[in-house]
């Protein structure tokens, strides 16, 4: 494989602790190596430019059934933005729900090289893998959803952690999944009857278990197995005024549980898109930011990581396994609504949404997301996301960087809000003067999420031995710049390397890379009861047979298996 030496760039890397000093980065055989280890490298001149590891997205909806519902039921999302193929690029289209091909290329252009699909309905795992297979360049994994799964509800009702863990291990293998995702625990099962679970103590109809039992049980089962990532959480009561108490109640369920993982993470719960879970007030008239309370908790509890779910003020397509929430949303905005409940497992909904700067609530949401990041004491535990495409499309990450790095940019936006005064009253953002630097951005977008995922041994840094995922941006941090320069530079990487292959050269995409699909193979002791339950449920309640359920073979042409031994 080709050797590269990226010379004289301003390097920002939390793993090496380099904060913008000039350094050289060497690549050999797909890995980062000491600069002395390359003999005849191709020289990449990065002088006057910023060099970072490839970005890691811990939470985005980029592949699978509900994403494709979003594509197929929104032809308007493609209006005036379909582009022809050229060079090695194929045809592309879509703004908030781009085609898989555009997804791969657009992430690459922002310097991102690893993207996790945030919610995979197990019965639709094959579909999710087909889409990931057709997404070029990126390493990807997908999180199967567990929070409304009948097996889990039945086992955890009696706090059967070992059985839950054995079932998780079985399902991860059957679906080729990466982590344990929980969406509106119990609430989506309730939604199968048109109901919901509004707080952690609201019992699930028929199953007679509370969301609190599900959350705590799944954290314990996750740690029983010692999976690379922690339980990945989307709490009950998303998107409602006053919901921050439910969020804090959910956080507290992780207290006293220690991480048990050989993969270097320190958290036992990752809570995603916390912006949607940080609202005070009791109606849309008096909704307000509770980011201070939320971050007060996060900052003082190091067994939690979170991501932002930053609203980007765009027209977008919301999609979540939180079925009742999407129904709630369509009643609010009266736009088209798709729903897809999945037997024994989960559900989902899709509704377009316009986050308008002229609407007070949207502006408050925008402020809350930024507050979460700006109030973070440890950027290694607070990650940048838009919950793509729920709060906005992922292509806005560079714009969020601009807002986080520049108070001037934030003030410009606040001044542009129609209801500026009300928004300022309901939030804390106007009083925050913190400006993040690129080192902190690298923590929030690279080293932090990689560590939380249990993938710090592969991604998120530029230390020798890590995967050679390296991005070079046209940005000189030592020269004066206006806020928009940040957005422009980080939207359009000058060079990008993925696993040592040059993907972008002088802003041109020159390779489709060697995309890999990550999944976790957790080995557990034989568990006859769980296998009997699996057989029974397939025989009686599923509409596919057990033998037709497992995903394998050509759905993962280039798998990367992470082995976990939980037999002890």
């Amino acid at each position, binding site marked *: 494989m080709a050797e590269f030496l990226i010379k004289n760039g301003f390097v920002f890397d939390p793993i090496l602790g380099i904060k913008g000093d000039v350094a050289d980065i060497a690549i050999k055989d797909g890995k980062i190596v000491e600069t002395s280890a390359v003999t005849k490298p191709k020289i990449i001149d990065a002088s006057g430019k910023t060099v970072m590891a490839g970005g890691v997205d811990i939470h985005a909806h980029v592949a699978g*059934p509900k994403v494709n519902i979003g594509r197929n039921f929104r032809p308007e999302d493609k209006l005036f933005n379909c582009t022809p193929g050229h060079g090695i690029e194929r045809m592309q289209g879509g703004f908030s729900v781009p085609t898989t091909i555009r997804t791969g290329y657009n992430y690459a252009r922002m310097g991102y090289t690893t993207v996790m699909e945030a919610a995979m309905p197990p019965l639709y795992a094959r579909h999710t893998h087909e889409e990931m297979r057709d997404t070029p360049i990126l390493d990807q994994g997908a999180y199967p959803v567990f929070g409304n799964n009948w097996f889990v509800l039945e086992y955890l009702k009696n706090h059967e952690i070992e059985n839950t863990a054995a079932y998780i291990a079985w399902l991860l293998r059957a679906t080729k999944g990466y982590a344990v995702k929980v969406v509106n625990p119990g609430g989506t099962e309730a939604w199968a009857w048109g109901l919901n679970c509004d707080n952690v103590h609201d019992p699930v109809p028929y199953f007679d278990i509370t969301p609190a039992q599900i959350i705590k049980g799944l954290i314990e089962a996750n740690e029983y197995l010692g999976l690379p990532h922690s339980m990945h959480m989307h709490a009950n009561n998303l998107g409602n005024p006053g919901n921050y108490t439910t969020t804090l109640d959910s956080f507290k369920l992780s207290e006293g549980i220690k991480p048990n993982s050989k993969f270097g993470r320190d958290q036992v719960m990752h809570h995603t898109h916390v912006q949607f879970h940080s609202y005070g007030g009791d109606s849309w008239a008096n909704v307000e930011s509770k980011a201070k309370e939320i971050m007060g908790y996060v900052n003082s509890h190091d067994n939690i990581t979170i991501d932002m779910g930053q609203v980007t003020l765009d027209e977008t397509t919301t999609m979540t396994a939180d079925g009742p929430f999407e129904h709630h949303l369509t009643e609010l905005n009266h736009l*088209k609504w798709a729903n897809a409940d*999945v037997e024994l497992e989960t559900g989902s909904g*899709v509704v377009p949404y316009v986050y308008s700067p002229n609407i007070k609530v949207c502006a408050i949401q925008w402020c809350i997301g930024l507050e979460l990041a700006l109030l973070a004491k440890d950027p290694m535990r607070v990650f940048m996301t838009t919950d793509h495409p729920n709060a906005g499309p992922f292509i806005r990450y560079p714009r969020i960087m601009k807002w986080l790095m520049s108070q001037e940019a934030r003030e410009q936006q606040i001044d542009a809000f129609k209801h500026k005064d009300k928004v300022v009253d309901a939030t804390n953002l106007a009083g925050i003067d913190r400006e993040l630097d690129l080192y902190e951005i690298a923590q929030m977008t690279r080293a932090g999420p990689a560590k939380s995922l249990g993938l710090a041994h592969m991604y998120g840094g530029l230390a020798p031995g890590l995967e050679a995922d390296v991005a070079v941006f046209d940005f000189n941090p030592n020269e004066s710049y206006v806020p928009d320069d940040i957005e422009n530079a980080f939207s359009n990487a000058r060079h990008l390397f993925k696993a040592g292959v040059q993907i972008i050269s002088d802003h041109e995409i020159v390779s489709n890379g060697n995309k890999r699909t990550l999944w976790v193979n957790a080995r557990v002791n034989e568990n006859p009861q769980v296998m009997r339950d699996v057989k029974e449920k397939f025989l009686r*309640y599923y509409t596919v047979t057990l033998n037709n359920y497992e995903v394998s073979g050509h759905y993962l042409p280039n798998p990367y298996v992470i082995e976990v031994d939980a037999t002890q």
Partner: protein
Amino acid sequence: MTKTVTDVVCPFCGTLCDDLEVVVSDDGKKLLEVYNACAIGAEKFLHSQAKDRITRPRMRQEDGSWKEISYDEAADYTARMLADAKKPLMYGWSSTNCEAQSVGSEIGEAVGAVMDNTATVCHGTSLIAVQDIGIPSCTLGEVKNRADRILFWGCNPAHAHPRHMSRYSIFPRGFFTGKGHTGRKVIVVDPRVTDTARVADVHLQIEQGHDYELLDALRVAFKGEQLPDVVAGIPKAKIYEVAETLKSGRFAIIFFGMGVTQSIGKNHNIDAAIAVTRDLNEYTKAAIMPMRGHYNVTGSGQVWGWQFGFPFAVDLSRGFARYNPGETTSNDLLRRDEVDAVFVLGSDPGAHFPFSSVRKIYDLPSVAVEPHETPTTEICKVHVPVAFVGVEVGGCAYRMDNVPIETRKVVDAPEGMMTDEEFLKSVLMRVREIKGV
């Protein structure tokens, strides 16, 4: 000794039953018996064993006779036809696997084709309605385990999806539906007394072409507002009764078919049907599902969805994907003489398109990739027989509720026969050579 292959997936209709058992000869070359399938499904498997099956590509001669050609020659003819055409139509894609559909997309991109599937004369109107208003739906297992109100509108599963009623909708005993059919109320809306209507608790024998009115009347009835004495031939008391039946259920499901998607009103009927479902969700839980016909028409819409963003009628001829049903749909293109070559795979437009369109296909350079002899193969210039997907080769297919299932290979194809995917790959290679890319 014979071998029994279990968990076989039936490549016939959108019900995509996956519990078939197929007995094959010891050497895996002969398919002997099929269990658990409906009559149509069993015939599809057994038909592959026909002695008179066409096993080599053939080209129509000037005198009307066929001449056998090699797969290479067939691929070359196809590639040249597509590459030379200004705007070829690549139609069908519903009776094949997603892997072949994917290769088809690459060919379509390379030659600037219009890609269209059988939804164009089937549930395309439903897809348009979904773009208008969305679709609250679910998997078939939700129906089996929860539904106690089953409404069939303009569809006749007793004949078109024979195992649908026993596997998913009327008869099965699921988790919350332990009483099976006795716990369910079945309503059929159909102008004919179909075999499905015969098993219904209520048959609304609607006047043909008045679906929109009756759907709207249901929405009025849900709200308890006034109705005229008769709507669409149904007395108002009956409509109020059916509305109450639906509202009082725990879980209602509407299945609909061609009787409502392709009768007068078309996509507007489906708009109304989905609005009925939305309304019902104010009172109880409700879902709606199109009864997709071909076993993988759904998959074709999915594959194009993630590759191009549109489920059917995808025009790639300008170099990027465009979608405008009415303009980029097959029959409109054919009848306006807007396409100059026709490639058909996994469908039979010769049997199902209007005669005015079929005549255009006959007049154009045309290739049909198809295991059977069909009206389409009769009118095309080249017929490429291929292995049966789901019988002689596996691959992914999407059920009517979008659940993907990997079909199975149970026997070998006759010696030397190519699969859809293999043939398309050789066409793609030739296209690239011709285009120099």
